[in-house]
């Protein structure tokens, strides 16, 4: 308990003059936090495009992205928990919120959003729950009885599935999805505000930050949903091929449906990508043009030591290349897959360049700090705020999705949503 650990010393190296107390205090988990919230918000917005604006072309992926955003939801708060020096006090902001702080309302916004997502999933799947209860009615086995009991609890006692009640469900879904869009944007724009309002940090302080965060959130969310969808459909296709052979009709059906969903989603992906990049470039140009006191050090970070991270990896490989891939005619599944992977990488690099880049220079504007991600953990801290923690956060949504999807199947797609 009483080990002497200087937080940040482990992974920070300094260059020229920095104040003695300056370290990279906000490390990899704070990169993960906006990244994961962004994925949640983006996945939800994608599903809402269908539920609210009736974008019929998104019907297939909407159901999946809704359930997936439910699986991502707990993971958005996980990096914060791994980052806190006093994780056992994580609930304090709910008990004594200090509302002048941008992060005091996180719990409130997050829980509001969670309630909306959970209720929307419930309304979408209520019919399924009821049908399962009825289907499993006469079963004898212990497992099946348990399963029926769980479904029974999930129905919350609302067993009516006559058309008029289902119509009410549908209306509720539409209303919830409608409220959900601004709340999802708020949840994420709010993450942007947390950074944008830090006046001491020359790189972060910008009123554009919340909007930039929302746009890139939607981009990453759509990309992740598309990628996961492709992977799962490919797996299904492989299973069909194994079972029935290459030329079987069902294989062709899966292939056709998959491509259709993907090419329609990628249209939305591209438009949000353009919006995100435009805002980021605007921010950059504005900083250069106004050239405030901090510009000298910002320029040396952006065009100097972080050049590869920002211009090659983020803008080039993460934005420009996938954009060209998506724009070029004759889209294939393989190319779209590559594009979504690159976009996810690009958004991750954007978060990295904001969070780590914002701490790459000293508050004295006279020195630099470098971040070295702990790869092999040798203490709890280097695990939590190292590669181990990252992998934990990245894998959790898939594990959760596996279990949630057992009760809310989102990948079949025959039923009316």
């Amino acid at each position, binding site marked *: 308990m009483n080990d002497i650990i200087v937080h940040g010393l482990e992974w920070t190296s300094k260059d020229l003059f920095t104040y003695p107390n300056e370290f990279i205090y906000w490390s990899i988990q704070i990169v993960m936090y906006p990244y994961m919230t962004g994925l949640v918000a983006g996945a939800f917005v994608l599903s809402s495009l269908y539920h609210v604006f009736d974008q019929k072309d998104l019907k297939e992926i909407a159901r999946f992205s809704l359930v997936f955003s439910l699986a991502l939801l707990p993971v958005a708060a996980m990096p914060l928990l791994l980052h806190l020096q006093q994780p056992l006090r994580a609930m304090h902001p709910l008990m004594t919120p200090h509302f002048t702080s941008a992060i005091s309302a996180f719990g409130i916004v997050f829980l509001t959003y969670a309630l909306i997502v959970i209720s929307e999933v419930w309304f979408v799947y209520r019919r399924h729950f009821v049908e399962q209860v009825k289907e499993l009615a006469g079963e004898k086995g212990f497992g099946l009885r348990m399963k029926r009991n769980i479904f029974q609890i999930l129905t919350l006692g609302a067993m009516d599935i006559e058309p008029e009640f289902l119509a009410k469900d549908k209306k509720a879904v539409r209303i919830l999805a409608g409220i959900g869009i601004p709340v999802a944007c708020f949840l994420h724009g709010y993450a942007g505000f947390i950074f944008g309002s830090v*006046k001491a940090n020359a790189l972060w302080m910008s009123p554009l930050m919340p909007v930039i965060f929302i746009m890139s959130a939607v981009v990453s969310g759509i990309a992740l949903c598309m990628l996961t969808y492709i992977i799962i459909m490919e797996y299904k296709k492989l299973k069909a091929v194994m079972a029935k052979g290459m030329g079987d009709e069902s294989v062709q059906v899966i292939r056709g449906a998959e491509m259709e969903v993907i090419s329609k989603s990628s249209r939305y992906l591209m438009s949000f990508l353009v919006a995100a990049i435009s805002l980021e470039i605007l921010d950059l140009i504005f900083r250069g043009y106004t050239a405030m006191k901090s510009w000298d050090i910002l320029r040396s970070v952006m065009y100097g030591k972080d050049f590869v991270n920002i211009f090659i990896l983020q803008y080039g490989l993460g934005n420009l290349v996938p954009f060209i891939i998506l724009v070029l005619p004759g889209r294939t599944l393989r190319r779209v897959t590559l594009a979504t992977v690159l976009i996810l990488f690009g958004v991750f690099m954007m978060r990295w360049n904001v969070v780590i880049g914002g701490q790459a220079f000293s508050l004295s504007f006279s020195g630099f700090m470098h971040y070295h991600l702990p790869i092999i953990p040798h203490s709890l801290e280097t695990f939590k705020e190292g590669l181990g923690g990252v992998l934990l956060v990245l894998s959790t949504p898939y594990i959760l999705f596996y279990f949630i999807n057992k009760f809310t199947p989102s990948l079949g797609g025959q039923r009316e949503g």
Partner: protein
Amino acid sequence: MKCSRRNFLQKSIYGALAVTLPLTAFKILSPGEAAAALKESNLRWAFLVDTRKCVGCGLCVKACKNENEIPYDTPVTRTWVERYVVTRDGKTRIDSPNGARDGFTSPEMLGEKIDEKEITKAFFVPKLCNHCATPACVQVCPVGATYQAPDGAVLVDRTWCIGCGYCIMACPYGVRFFHPVHKVAEKCTFCYHRISKGMQAACVQACPFGVRQMGNIKDPDDPVTKIIMSERVGVLKDEYGTKPHVFYLGLDERVR
């Protein structure tokens, strides 16, 4: 009474609202009400640093670390001293080896040897928490664990800090860090445990040259207040609007 599902849900929502209401009611205070609740204090601590007298011995840093139990061999410190060396080519070199805990024992700066003849001016600048009138750190604390006492001192409640680090990010002066043992935000308190008992802050007492002084800026007869009111003093980074309360005599424009 019939308890239908609708009824039950409705009542649950009312119940939940009723439970949360008293909590929120406690919190929503207009700034005027809040100010009225805190009685106007006739004490406001201010710090005065005479940079012209500082020789960079580092006794203040040493005293502070011992007094406030900051592990001695860690690089973090509540107060530190910076050395500025300006050469004929217009360059400024700054360093603060180990926060100047052991003073400045080498003429080398950041591994660079500087020709004495090239130096046009050189000076030392002690730094500590500015106990700002509008502290950014207090504004951003999500739980109110860091707060400002009526006498202006900005303090941290170690039992309530969640260790998010937002205050560390928000401070433009880099005075905050995580305590290596307690794992909560840590900063200079003006030695609150001493000054509130009529003693001097550890660094003030340790300084052999009278560089550091403290006083009550609301008392016009206080010797420190007299200097601040009659001499030309400067503060650090006033562009952030934090209204710092550590005043400097002989502050150079190159000081960051």
